[in-house]
């Protein structure tokens, strides 16, 4: 039995606030969709998120952020991922982010940003469509 498309996703919550309900709900939805989720908990710094992403060799990092520091934290994570050789790891996120900033962040390389209205179904579908490794068969040798 060859590996099915294998998904390994790091879910993290940055910032000072203690609200992790959203990130937990998304984590559970991804798990129920058959993915392996590494949940790292609250108050993560970009350095911690990236170190975990590299060691755990995830396909994507999902970052939840409510505190308004998105214009520094997302770019910092992108930078660090590239420095560590993980430029191919997708970064997506969620939070209350103004539309202009969404555009800027996407230009910088954030793969997708979900606003609070997005449903878990939307997020799971997006991850399925954009993340994941080639199966043994399609990877060739």
């Amino acid at each position, binding site marked *: 039995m060859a590996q099915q498309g294998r998904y390994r996703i790091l879910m993290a919550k940055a910032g000072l606030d203690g609200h992790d309900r959203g990130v937990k709900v998304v984590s*559970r939805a991804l798990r129920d969709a058959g993915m*392996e989720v590494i949940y790292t908990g609250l108050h993560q710094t970009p*350095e911690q998120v990236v170190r*975990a992403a*590299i060691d755990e060799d995830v396909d994507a990092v999902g970052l939840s952020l409510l505190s308004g520091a998105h214009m520094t934290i997302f770019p910092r994570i992108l930078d660090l991922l590239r420095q560590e050789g993980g430029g191919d790891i997708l970064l997506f996120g969620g939070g209350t982010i103004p539309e202009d900033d969404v555009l800027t962040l996407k230009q910088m390389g954030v793969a997708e940003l979900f606003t609070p209205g997005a449903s878990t179904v939307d997020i799971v579908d997006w991850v399925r469509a954009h993340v994941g490794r080639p199966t*043994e068969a399609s990877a060739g040798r």
Partner: protein
Amino acid sequence: MATETPAGELVDRLLAGNRRAAGQVISRIEDESPDVESIMRGIFPHTGNAYVVGITGPPGAGKSTVVDELIRVIRASGKRIGVVAVDPNSPFSGGAILGDRIRMMRHSSDTGVFIRSMGARGHLGGLALAARNTILVLDAMGFEVVLVETVGVGQSELEIAGTADTVALVVAPGMGDGVQAIKAGIMEIADIFVVNKADHPQANKTVADIRDLLRMEIAPRAWTPPIVKTVAIRNEGLEDLWIRTRQHRQYLERSGELENRRKLRLEAEILEIADRRLREQVLEPSTETEEFQQLLDRVVHRETDPYAVADRIVPRPGLGGV
């Protein structure tokens, strides 16, 4: 999709200390990719230096919190630490939330620590094999101590704990049946008992229960397992646990038991590899012939018996060699 980096290149990079390469190699191990064998052969000469400590016990006993605290204690001595956190708990969807790491996140800013979470899913060759190879990767990377967290329940968890040099069994008081939560089989492989959550009023009772259990054991032990009380959430007792672990290591080294155990494990590993090859290259193909299928039909009709057919695949001792 990115093209796959050749195995040899990944091995060279991880041996040079590159974490990205190490992470990717572990993924290939987990995916049971066809190049795992060549990867492991590249790594093997660089292994054998790490001291492997298994942290096992029932769900929720505080294993991850103990690991987090042990990292703190061991890092104070400057040693680099690898952690493999095995979480076999996956629902039917095949997905999993691997949460052990949450308790260890403060060490994520320390380059002397490498933490890898591992789920149970899709490990055809066994979770134990994937965990063992991951330990070897961390060993080859130069991590001097490797801590392996497993829930002490199933057979594969027992197997994983069995690959450690020292096994610490973590239990907590007031967990239902208390010490009954210690499954048969795990008790015997414990070198150190840890009664965590010693802030609980029942802690001394649990210690006494373990003492009783140890007294009732029939097989004699050359090493008497100490019982260490810890309050991992309050940083209490972890220094003591590390001292006991080092004492156990000294005991193993002085008695020659360390070399002995490691040798036996390598022997078992060679047999396992040979066994797998025998199955894949000899046994399974032999059932695919027409002759075999005809013999099988004859067995079904009781015209011959399974032993006689097996003789044709592997001759019975005394019937002449293969």
